[in-house]
């Protein structure tokens, strides 16, 4: 075989993965799968082998499994050198070295960055330090919170009713704990799914005995003499006594360690091209640095080339696989990461799934089932095309709607479906608080099934 640079890399190269979690592990496994024989170093600031996060807000809080037992299943042996419990603290792009917090430096020929995100902390540091105030991102967070729930707190306050906050509230109710949820928007899940679906989510909370307070902000947390949280103050002047507070205000990208490195990394993530190659600050794509998972921000042709940052499990896996493939491929064999966003959650006994980018939608139509029964499919429309879909306990149809999104099918869907109800006869405003509308551009459609025959078809704007 010709001793090309690529063959050399595969045989003797050094690949470093920073971030030893879902994307990092799946990326590493794919590298080995693709025949990478060189040295592989996994750097992770958490002291644990890669574990799975979704159960932390579900099974683990319910006591149906413990936070310590969510190791990710291994697809194969990766024969890596593990540097766990030590953070990467810097990057020297010119010398191709990752600096570690313990002073070590690790050289690489190719680098995969998968540092994910961390929970956004409560903005007041002193209040955030109070005993009984938690965030939920890591295994340690999950274990600590589960222990506290075991002690049977009198009232839990969840700040923020996004997916994680809602799941935590749901777990509380399932365990018989009193819980208050405070949300700035008018309903839970509004940011991700809009007001129409948010209203359904609000009913779910209330039916299940959650004290849901919307259109409100928590202004301060108050501790007792032993520094234990005892109350929260709200923007409407009221006060709530609570002994556990879970701050669930979204996430921040783990990019601080890259500041000054010259890589295009910032608070919105690390920008990369569709092939997962990172941009430097000049907007020039690097050849040797790849990114994947929650920390990445990549353009999606199907959604107007918007740079999407997705905090989705499936995206982390798929993007890591693509990055790994491309790291070991000649330029002509590289593949774009054109994964159609998909997300799931389960709360209050309902399985919620979405595909596409619902938050781009301006309208929604309930094409199957009914909101009153909490069993339905909602399709999001944007400029006359289907852009996203959500199902409540109706996920077996989702694949169809994914194809509708991939083929830029017209919205509202002009055809009848099984289980179409009167409420599905016409679209409603999707009711997002701040619709960030991309400008209209060229149209791209996807076809094919296996990664190798996934194809993009480009239709120029003005068509």
């Amino acid at each position, binding site marked *: 075989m010709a001793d090309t640079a690529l063959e050399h890399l595969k045989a003797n190269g050094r690949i470093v993965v920073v971030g030893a979690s879902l994307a990092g592990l799946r990326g590493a496994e794919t590298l080995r799968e693709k025949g990478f024989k060189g040295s592989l170093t996994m750097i992770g600031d958490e002291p644990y082998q890669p574990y799975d996060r979704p159960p932390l807000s579900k099974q683990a809080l319910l006591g149906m499994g413990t936070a310590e037992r969510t190791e990710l299943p291994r697809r194969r042996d990766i024969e890596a050198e593990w540097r766990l419990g030590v953070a990467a603290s810097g990057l020297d792009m010119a010398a191709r070295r990752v600096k570690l917090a313990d002073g070590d430096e690790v050289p690489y020929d190719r680098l995969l960055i998968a540092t994910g995100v961390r929970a956004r902390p409560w903005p007041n540091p002193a209040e955030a330090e109070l005993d009984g105030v938690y965030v939920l991102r890591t295994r340690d967070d999950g274990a600590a919170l589960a222990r506290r729930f075991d002690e049977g707190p009198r009232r839990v306050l969840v700040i923020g009713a996004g997916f994680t906050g809602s799941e935590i509230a749901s777990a509380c109710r399932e365990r018989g704990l009193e819980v208050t949820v405070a949300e700035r928007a008018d309903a839970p899940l509004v940011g991700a799914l809009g007001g129409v679906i948010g209203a359904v989510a609000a009913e779910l909370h209330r039916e299940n005995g959650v004290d849901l307070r919307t259109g409100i902000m928590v202004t301060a947390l108050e501790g007792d003499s032993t520094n234990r949280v005892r109350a929260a103050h709200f923007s409407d002047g009221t006060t709530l006594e609570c002994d556990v507070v879970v701050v669930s205000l979204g996430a921040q990208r783990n990019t601080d360690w890259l500041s000054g490195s010259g890589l295009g990394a910032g608070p919105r993530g690390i920008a990369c091209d569709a092939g997962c190659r990172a941009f430097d600050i000049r907007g020039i794509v690097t050849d040797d640095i790849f990114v994947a998972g929650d920390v990445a921000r990549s353009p999606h042709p199907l959604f107007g080339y918007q740079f999407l940052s997705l905090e989705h499990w499936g995206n982390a896996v798929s993007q890591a696989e693509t990055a790994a493939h491309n790291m070991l491929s000649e330029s002509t064999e590289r593949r774009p990461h054109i994964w159609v966003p998909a997300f799931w959650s389960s709360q209050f006994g309902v399985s919620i799934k979405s595909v596409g980018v619902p938050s781009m939608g301006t309208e929604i139509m309930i094409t199957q089932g009914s909101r009153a029964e909490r069993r339905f499919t909602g399709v999001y429309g944007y400029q006359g095309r289907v852009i996203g879909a959500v199902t409540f306990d109706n996920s077996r149809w989702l694949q169809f709607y994914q194809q509708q999104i991939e083929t830029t099918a017209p919205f509202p869907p002009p055809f009848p479906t*099984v289980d179409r109800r009167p409420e599905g006869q016409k679209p409603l405003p999707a009711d997002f608080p701040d619709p960030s509308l991309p400008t209209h551009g060229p149209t791209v459609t996807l076809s094919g099934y296996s990664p190798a025959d996934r194809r993009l078809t480009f239709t120029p704007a003005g068509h």
Partner: protein
Amino acid sequence: MKQGILSDILDYANRANPYPLYAELRKTPVFHDGDGPYVISTYHHIQSLLHDPRLSSDARNLAANAGDPLAGAEDEGAAALPPSFLKLDPPEHDRLRRMTNRPFGPPHSPHRVDDMRGFLHTTVTGLIDNLGDPERIDLVDQFAYPFPVTMICRLLGVPREDEARFHVWADTLAASLDPDPDADPKEREKKTHDARMELGMYLAGLIEERRKNPGEDMLSQLAVGHGQDETMSTMELLSTAALLLIAGHETTVNLITNGMLTLLRNPDVLQQLRETPDLAVPLVEELLRFEPPVQLLPQRTPLVDIEVGGVTIPKGSSMWLILASGNRDPHRFENPDRFDPYRKDIQHLGLGSGIHSCFGAPLARLEAQLALTELVRRLENPRLVEDPPPYRQNAVLRGPRHLRITCDGVRPA
């Protein structure tokens, strides 16, 4: 209904090996000839149609002239009853299936199937103990038929002493699914009718009695009902029980028999299963791909004109989705005609997909895994007496009518 390849598929002469016909069919992924059904034979098309909400399973949406040679063929069994959820669309489908699932599977009854392991094992052991002359075994009559019916009796809560009667009705109804060109149709029809009536009356009585004295069995729990969905009506319950009975044992018989046949044709795999019983799990999956008990789904119809692979299928047309063909689609599976229990990527269509995916799958899988493992463990040097064996008439629920084998002895349990 003479339509070249479709009549070939229905022709008994091709029952033992329909796969070359499917390969031929896949050259025209959406096949339509004259006024016959639209036949879909490739994996990805079938897979997406199974998730397509524009497709109905409710025969009432068929156009009057849909021209389906299979129409009604396997439906007579339930003529007097309302359609089971297999033949309904949401929301009725969802409601009935959900209620049926409550006493059967997670989240409400996560242990139902697993708790049957012990009983499954005892039943399998008993049947093997009683195989009699090891040189003359008909695996269908002596094992593959009685096994799942016994399990269904257990599931529904049919009392021990009534099981024998129940088996006779089940056999008669099963036979009615297989058109028999030689039998007197009048007489057959009467026999079937009587069996159906007697079984119906029996189940109705059982339901009545379980309403008063509910036990742990599924029928009791269905009869009592709980939660947000109201209770099933007696008629709905009868349809559901009939569905569980017919769908639940007709298919499992074939899964087990096809399984043994395949193993006997692949002695190396048989040996591997004997040495590594854990192989049963992936082996049954591969079996569901390689020789699915339900070869095709004949009852689907679009609610609106739809386009599949460049062909417009008009609203109300009859469609066949040939699951067994999709399972052998070389665009989806490498070396599809090879039986390989070590295959990694095995998302087969053997149990369907989407909202109508096989309701009894967890039980069917467990039954087949156990049956095959125990058979290969206990039969000494088993061999086929004839290959191919005689098949059942039925092209949809395809499997051997008899599987005569011989072996050197039966090892003790």
